[in-house]
Every structure is written in C-alpha cells, then in structure tokens.
C-alpha cells in the first residue's frame, strides 16, 4: 500500500509503469486519474485543494484497507495533490492490481467513491467571475450506497 498526499505534481505515466512493474503474479492493473477540467460556462483560473494533514492519510489508509479486505487485490497506490492547481493539471490517481480484472476494477471504483466523500479534501474554484467552494454532489453520496 502506497499513499501519498503532496503539493508537488506527479508523473502519471512513471507512477503507472512503476506500479505495474512491481506487481508479482497480478494479471490486471487499473488506474484512475482525476484532472482539473474547465467549467461549463466560466473560465477556471485556479483550483485550490485544502486538506486536513494527519487525518487525510489516516482516512485514505482506512479506505485502502477496506478495499483490501473486500477484494482479492495485490496492491494499491493513491496519490492526491493539495494546493493550487490549474486546468489540465492532474489532481490525483489511484492504481490497483489483481489476478483477475473484476477485482481491480471494483476496488478502484470503491476507492474513488470513498475518497471523493470520505477523505478530508475540499476544492475551491477561482474563475474569471467568482471564487466558490465546490459543493458536494448528492450523487457522490449516493454512490457509496452500492458498496
């Protein structure tokens, strides 16, 4: 299990290659990457990500441990940035490995659903017209119910 909360950018490709290379006996690797995307109407200048140092790492470790208990997976990587990001910057990634593909897919979706609503991160969007905290979506809360 490799969990990193950092201000620095990360290299998605290098992390994915390194993750895949260190798996043994795993036939499947799934990655998810979250990217800062432009807004539908206004122009996004900066996305600020605030987090709760100390609790963040604990929350991510707990979510990853739960994934390990529920699925037959080999390994989990989670990297999440905080601080100031711009459009097209990578926000975070998760990677999972498993012998059979269903486990890696399910575990990655589970990690994302819980990371989204249960890890202490908050996003603030500064656009050409306003600065607002991103509101949690009810569908993200609903997504937890399937697990």
């Amino acid at each position: 299990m490799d969990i990193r909360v950092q201000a620095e950018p990360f290299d998605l490709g290098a992390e994915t290659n390194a993750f895949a290379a260190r798996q043994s006996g795993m036939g499947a690797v799934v990655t998810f990457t979250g990217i800062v995307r432009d807004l539908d109407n206004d122009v996004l200048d900066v996305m600020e990500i605030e987090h709760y140092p100390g609790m963040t790492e604990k929350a991510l470790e707990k979510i990853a441990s739960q994934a390990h208990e529920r699925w037959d997976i080999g390994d989990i990587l989670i990297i999440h940035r905080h601080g100031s990001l711009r459009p097209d910057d990578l926000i975070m990634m998760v990677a999972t490995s498993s012998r059979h593909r269903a486990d890696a897919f399910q575990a990655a979706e589970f990690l994302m659903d819980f990371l989204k609503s249960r890890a202490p991160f908050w996003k603030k969007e500064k656009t050409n017209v306003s600065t607002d905290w991103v509101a949690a979506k009810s569908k993200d809360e609903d997504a937890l119910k399937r697990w």
Partner: protein
Amino acid sequence: MDVLYFAWVRERIGAPKERVETNAATVMDLVNELRTREERYAAAFADLSALRVAVDQELSDFDAPLKDVREVAFFPPMTGG
C-alpha cells in the same frame, strides 16, 4: 482541546485552529457553547446539516462524547478526487 476549521467554515470563523477550554460533554454541546460566543460562530454553525465533524481525526457525529478528546474539526462535506 484543539478545534480545527476547514474550507468555508475556516473562512467564516476566520482561523484554521484554536485552543478551546471547555467542559462540553459532546460535540453538540461544544457547538452550542461556540454559537453563544460570537456572531461568526453562530453563522458558521447555523446549519449543521451542511457540516461534518471529525473527532481525533476520525469522521464522527454531533452526539459523539468529548471525554479525553484532543482534537475536534468542523468542515463542509468533502469534495476530493
């Protein structure tokens, strides 16, 4: 006890963290105590359904006891990922 605030709660309170001397038995008691202090607390805690609480860095409930607790944090629903 350390009380921490994040995101817009931090902005409304005007500080990320403060030391609070209290005999509050539960998180809810603490919230009610803070509400009476100053208008900014009353504003931040106006709608508890819009708030989440962590007790010693674990997500918790407003009726959680505060005995032996070192750190309580208030913040809006999380938006990671």
